[in-house]
């Protein structure tokens, strides 16, 4: 099984890779939520796992900017126009997993983080504190 990262490698210099959880915490073709500590304080990320796909792991904000609730990990994962997306479970807007951009309103964007497997560990890159 391949490992994958979301962001370009040049940002990796000033980030630190932290263990987020283990593979069996993930739900295939769906999402789970986790806490991380960032330079701006604690944040909630939604982790999506697409086994067998070119990019298998994605991490985006768990916070839904439209509903102002922490629910993104509980949305349905799919692909639209060839791009993996998650649909907010509350008002159903679609967010591209790759860059967090909302398809219905491109001025809205979820944050994204690079994530990858290291063996059984799920690692996330967070900008150095």
């Amino acid at each position, binding site marked *: 099984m391949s490992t994958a990262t979301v962001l370009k490698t040049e940002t990796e210099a000033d980030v630190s890779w932290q263990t987020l959880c283990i593979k069996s*915490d993930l739900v*295939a073709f769906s999402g789970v939520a986790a806490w991380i500590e960032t330079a701006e304080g604690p944040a909630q990320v939604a982790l999506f796992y697409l086994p067998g*796909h070119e990019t298998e792991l994605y991490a985006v904000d768990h916070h839904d900017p439209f509903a*102002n609730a922490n629910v993104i990990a509980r949305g*349905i994962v799919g692909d*639209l126009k060839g791009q993996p997306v998650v649909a907010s479970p509350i008002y159903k807007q679609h967010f591209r997993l790759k860059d967090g951009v909302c398809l219905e309103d491109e*001025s809205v964007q979820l944050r994204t983080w690079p994530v990858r497997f290291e063996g059984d560990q799920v690692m996330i890159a967070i900008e150095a504190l």
Partner: protein
Amino acid sequence: MNISHSDKQQLIVIGNGMVGHHLVEQLVERGATEAYRIIVFGEERHLAYDRVHLSEYFAGRDAESLALCASDYYAEHGIELRLSEAVTGIDRDNGEVVTDKGRYAYDRLVLATGSYPFVPPIPGNDRPNCLVYRTLEDLDAIRAAAEKATTGVVVGGGLLGLEAANALRGLNLDTAVVEFAPRLMPMQVDSEGGELLREKIESLGVQVLTERATQRIEDGGASFHRMVFQDDKVLETDLIVFSAGIRPRDELARECGLEMGERGGVVIDDHCLTSDPAILAVGEVALWNNSIFGLVGPGYQMAKAAAYTLTQGELTFRGADMSTKLKLLGVDVGSIGDAHGDRSPGARMFRYLDQIKQEYRKLVVSSDGKKLLGAMLVGDNSYYDTLMQYYSNGLELPEDPASLILPSTEGAPALGADALPETATICSCHNVTKGDVCASIDAGCTDLGAVKLETKASTGCGGCAALLKSVVDHELESRGVEVDKSICEHFAYTRQELYGIVRVEGIKTFSELIEKHGSSQTQGLGCDICKPAVASILASCFNEPITDASHIPLQDTNDTFMANMQKNGTYSVVPRVPGGEITPDKLIALGEVAKKYQLYTKITGGQRVDLFGAQLHDLPDIWQELIDAGFETGHAYGKATRTVKSCVGSTWCRYGVQDSVGMALHIENRYKGLRSPHKLKFAVSGCTRECAEAQSKDVGVIATENGWNLYVCGNGGMRPRHAELFATDLDDETLIKYIDRFLMFYIRTADRLQRTSVWRENLDGGLDYLKDVIIHDSLGIGEELESQMQEVVDRYECEWANALKDPAKLKRFRSYVNDDRPDPNIIVTEERGQLRPA
């Protein structure tokens, strides 16, 4: 330079804006390049672009994508396009136009110079960072200025002013609109409408100041500018955009002595000819019948007429409709005909105002109430298309015209595409009638895209898109052409076809279905349309637990967590209370659980109790306690059997003729857990007094002296529909047999998210057909339907009980996989002795 050709006449077009470009296209279409050598002058450096969608430049579109044609279009047709070259004079005596670069002879000349934004003569209006909103260059200047600004003011609260305000807001400026009139958009709306508009716009954080006349602009203290108003009030801002109306760019015409209107504009006749027959004018510079038309649609109509005039055609410009429908700052505004009712003596009005939903609608009708003269809409433009058809085609209004603007459960009233006459205008930008659309279909267009290409309909402002689609769909269907009804981009099938495939091939997982039958163009993940639809089909057929690993990614969040998501991300819990009958012990248990987990408690409209505010990670514990007390899941979250409402019936009631509670329990226990295209509700009443309201349910049962009457396809909710009497005086067994068949037939043939009521209304052959299938077994599938139902019934297991047995499934119910912290975003407050979201 003085070029002139012997064989061809020379045609010069001044202005390469929207209308000037449209004129060129029309000329090309009419083969005018044979007779004319055409030169076009454009002052801007860009090829003609879509000014109507100018604001999208800020949203990332560039000049190229806004361009109205490919960059080689002009060259390809042998037309000389001279951009960045303004015409500075017209020498009519010698038949020449003058630019900085030279003189060019013309035989015919067209003025398409458009208009410029009016900047009120206020001292200080020429300060830096005082800008206008008309061209791409204006937008570049605004963007540059905004980088150093934190606040912006738009002077002018009309249509373009609000568009500019939206743009400033998008550039992250604190934005205000200053309007001279007592309300916003005084041209389009009245004071009620204006007030609503103000509320809506203020709620978006844009400050609205009306009845403000700016006296002067000077150096500010905290900001770059200070605006001083008539009452000496002041407003400070870094950036000012003037949008106080437009004025025709008629300076060339004025200087060369063409006839002008009193307040500007080049006078034209129906052929778009000016007072000099060698010269024509089109677009916003032209004054026809004393009117300037500040919209692109009328400009295009002039361009077409002018092209005919130049090629000896027989088409004239006879004025144009100024009706508009816009979305400004996300607010719908529509204005049709004489929207104010002040141009039509004797006119009468209907008005509808909803201050909660912030909607306002007004109709202006003729004194006999038969014709629509005008209309005004604020807040919801879905009423526009139908009203526009009544207005523009002079259709006779319905008996009660108010029904056209009153809110209805069916949404805005629609005039069916077939009700429109052939002459009905579908697209006013390109003047395309229903007849034109039909002709394009007869000429071989077989889908919406082809019709758009052929007729240009819906390629202007886009306001007619929905209407065009419905006309095209209707016309294609009536010609027997298949209209694409695929449920989404992942499957080229309808729900009904997918159901058939699943049944026939015995497919049990989504991945198998998409692998074998999905579209190859996608990544094979499905989407939030097809996944829940397929999940529902699989459950209706095989009734495997929806929390099984292969089914869980398909479910909406409610099904995933077997609870209903609330607006703050918490969930509600609704245990099943069959027939609404509950023991005191169970009631107490409900109360105890609610108390322990601090859940808000409410009796539902479905005769059971809803517990609100549970956090994801508490759901398993809550359910363990409920199951220990004898409860089962109530499927309040699923498109599934909900409740069977009952009245107390013959056991207690002095009128009851059958045991309605007993039958309700029997029905609820039989169909609980049944998933279907939409939710299913039932009720059983003990006599004709109908205390259980069975005639509003998908399946209603009413006791008679001799047994049961069965009603089907009722609905409460958004669009109430009375259930229809289906069969009378049935014994218990036949009653269940008919319900089995009825439900399975619905599940087999309904569309996704189609309640039985809507399904029934779309069923060819109606109730009689349904009776034939269910009662007389005309399709010979009665037994099959019954046995399919029996399979589902036999497989029933409470989903919550199933999940609680399986640690792997329970892992899913963690709010966070790496931390036990609760969600800090969930904040509650106390009201009437219970907690609710703050």
